[in-house]
């Protein structure tokens, strides 16, 4: 009985948490269109955020997805070699990267770099009364801080995901060319044949949703920060943990939906 009540309470908390995220998103959306603040200044802040979130992530993102491309090619080659189907390495890499790993790894890297930073920034501002200061200056903290972050993430995550796709394929290509089964040209052609526009598009949509979720979680954790430095640390940790969990969950839902849609088609 005790157990049941605990599970009930935990589910209630989870639902309330997700409700809070949706509320923050809805409020930001409204403030985006009916902004009490100046639009040009809002855009400036969004661009500033986009530079930090997107452009700043490019080097590390390129490195990671490139290596992941190589790893997938290597792992695939193990199995494909036994079947004498090494020519399928290119399609294996392109499909697994564009459909799954590109957007997912993008999301994980952005959670580590930006989701945590959002929580820490807003959390610190809560502790130092900067949020109160914004409010007394008639600058709504959500309009001032959160809306630009949503904008930046909604634009930059899909871009980063496409870039990840590209770098991952490049990594696979390195293996393909070095192992001698492909020339650069033949690898590109094999990739092109395997790649379906629909896969890339699905990846982009996923990345967009991931971006919104990461922003909402990071900002919500920041706002709910308590009163001290320790609480900022706690908010940052839970922003990362909750974001990863939600991103994987959403990925699962998306994959199931795509699978079912394919079954009926």
């Amino acid at each position, binding site marked *: 009985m005790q157990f049941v009540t605990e599970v009930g309470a935990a589910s209630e908390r989870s639902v309330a948490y997700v409700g809070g995220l949706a509320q923050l998103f809805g409020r930001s959306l409204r403030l985006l269109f009916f902004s009490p603040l100046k639009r040009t200044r809002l855009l400036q802040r969004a661009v500033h955020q986009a530079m930090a979130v997107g452009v700043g992530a490019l080097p590390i993102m390129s490195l990671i997805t490139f290596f992941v491309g190589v790893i997938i090619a290597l792992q695939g080659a193990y199995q494909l070699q036994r079947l004498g189907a090494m020519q399928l390495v290119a399609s294996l890499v392109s499909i697994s990267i564009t459909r799954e790993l590109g957007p997912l790894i993008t999301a994980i890297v952005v959670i580590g770099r930006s989701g945590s930073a959002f929580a820490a920034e807003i959390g610190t501002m809560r502790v130092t009364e900067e949020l109160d200061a914004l409010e007394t*200056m*008639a600058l709504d903290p959500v309009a001032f801080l959160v809306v630009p972050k949503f904008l930046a993430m909604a634009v930059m995550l899909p871009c980063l995901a496409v870039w990840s796709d590209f770098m991952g394929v490049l990594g696979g290509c390195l293996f393909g060319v070095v192992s001698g089964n492909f020339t650069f040209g033949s690898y590109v052609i094999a990739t092109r044949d395997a790649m379906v526009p629909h896969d890339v598009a699905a990846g982009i949509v996923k990345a967009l949703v991931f971006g919104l979720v990461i922003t909402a979680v990071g900002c919500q954790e920041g706002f709910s920060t308590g009163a001290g430095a320790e609480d900022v640390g706690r908010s940052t940790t839970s922003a990362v943990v909750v974001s990863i969990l939600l991103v994987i969950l959403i990925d699962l839902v998306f994959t199931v939906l795509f699978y079912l849609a394919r079954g009926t088609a």
Partner: protein
Amino acid sequence: MAAPSTPAPVVSARDLRVQYGDREVLHGLNFEIVHGETVVVLGGSGSGKSTLLRTLVGLEKPSSGAVHIKGVDITRASAREMDAIRKKIGLAFQGGALIGSLPVGENIALPLLEHTTLKPTTIEVMVRIKLEQVGLSGFENYSPAQLSGGMRKRAAFARALAMDPEILFFDEPSAGLDPITAAGIDDLILDLKKAYSMTMVVVTHELASAFLIADRIILLDRGSIVAMGPAQEVRDSRHPRVRQFLDRVADTTEDDDVDNLRLFTDGIR
């Protein structure tokens, strides 16, 4: 501006009660502050003076009662009305609360950039004037983290002054400062009072500074007003709690226990 014989209050609180959870921190406060007046809210730690300030500027919602600022009840105001009121008030926070990611100059320019249509060059000049006023000229490009505590407070004053507010609120302006810097801050408040005939509400526990700058003093004790009146009147008060506070007499432990008990039973009554 000549004050009429019975001036309408600029800030007023009526039966103001604030609760944190089950515990009531302010027990029905009533007061009025008129135009051009400097009112000091005095009180020890935990007397509720910071809560009172936060409630007066709308950062805290009272559990009952009303706060009127320039005739608008801010406990019932819409978001738009509240924004309009907020553009007419300035609040200098205890720790400054400057936006850490912006240099000092941009901190002061922020409300002007967001709320006015002034040209950037005009705003630049205004920022320079405000900084000069608080004795920080030339510090535009410093980040708040590079300033000392006293400088940060003064920068916060400059930001509070940026929109030329009608009412200024100060939270503990001289707390945690050395005597010389604290005296400098008192002088600054007196200057502002003389130069702009601004309405000012200062929350502090520094006695010397309070009697220096106040027209009127409100002494808060455990969430209730124990004395209110012109500075001289409060200074001469015979009320035991007032005397204790002004004469800096420590609570006896016995008293503490009784007061502690009262703290818990107040909510029940």
